[in-house]
């Protein structure tokens, strides 16, 4: 239940209008705090300090961690599922496909209709055994992400 509440808060934040910057500093703490509330695959997790360095807003203000973590979490589940399928590990592929289908499809904001459709289509194609969309997503968004 707690996880569902956190997820709803997370998704609501992703749908926010273009940002008003927050004056307080603390982006690194925001990333670490939000990361700890999210569900991650056991085998693919980002190097948090590298992620903070790569995505920190100019003034280090809070309010920008959600979109970065949403994309990186999507990449993590896509990579985990792809690796599990490649090595024939159905025990790991099953939970990853569940996250691809029921978790990451909630990340794109409401007004990014094309993005919402993309992750839904990627889930359907993954369920059918087609890795092409998830590989495209990882290549486009996380090709230089450092993983722990």
């Amino acid at each position, binding site marked *: 239940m707690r996880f569902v509440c956190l997820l709803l808060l997370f998704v609501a934040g992703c749908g926010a209008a273009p*940002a008003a910057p927050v004056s307080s500093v603390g982006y690194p703490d925001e990333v670490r705090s939000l990361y700890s509330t999210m569900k991650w695959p056991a085998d693919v997790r980002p190097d948090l300090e590298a992620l903070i360095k790569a995505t920190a807003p100019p003034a280090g203000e809070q309010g920008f961690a959600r979109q*970065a973590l949403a*994309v990186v979490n999507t*990449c993590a589940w896509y990579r985990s599922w792809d690796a599990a399928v490649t090595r024939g590990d159905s025990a790991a592929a099953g939970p990853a496909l569940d996250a691809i289908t029921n978790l990451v499809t909630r990340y794109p904001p409401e007004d990014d209709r094309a993005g919402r459709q993309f992750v839904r289509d990627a889930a359907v194609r993954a369920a059918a055994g087609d890795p092409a969309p998830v590989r495209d997503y990882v290549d*486009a968004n*996380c090709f230089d992400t450092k993983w722990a």
Partner: protein
Amino acid sequence: MKRKMFVVAVGVIGALVATAMPASASSSGLSGNLRKGEWVNYSTARTITVGGTNIYVNKTDGPEIGVKWRRCSGGAEGSEVRLQNADPTPRVRIGSNFRASTVFCLSAKSYGSNSTDTWNGNVWWNVN
């Protein structure tokens, strides 16, 4: 005869619109805060779903600004494009030839006289 001409005209206009804006083209309004001479990141993520397409923006209200796209997950960003003070500005391209599935965010900074300000405009993506 008039009816035929009307149908032809509608067909021509429809074809022109379809050529200019593919069915998958996306757009939304923008409204953001600004700091003079300092980049402000905006938190809304948008997804390129048509490979090889471009991002455009215009400004309908606000001071002269610089605007750029950046990958929401970090590691890549576009060059600054200036939008002049006079509004509305033309639609200008701020990035081109994107890979499908790229998730991008926007940043802007002010060249106006106020230390803080706001602006409004529009963004188009998945556009040729």
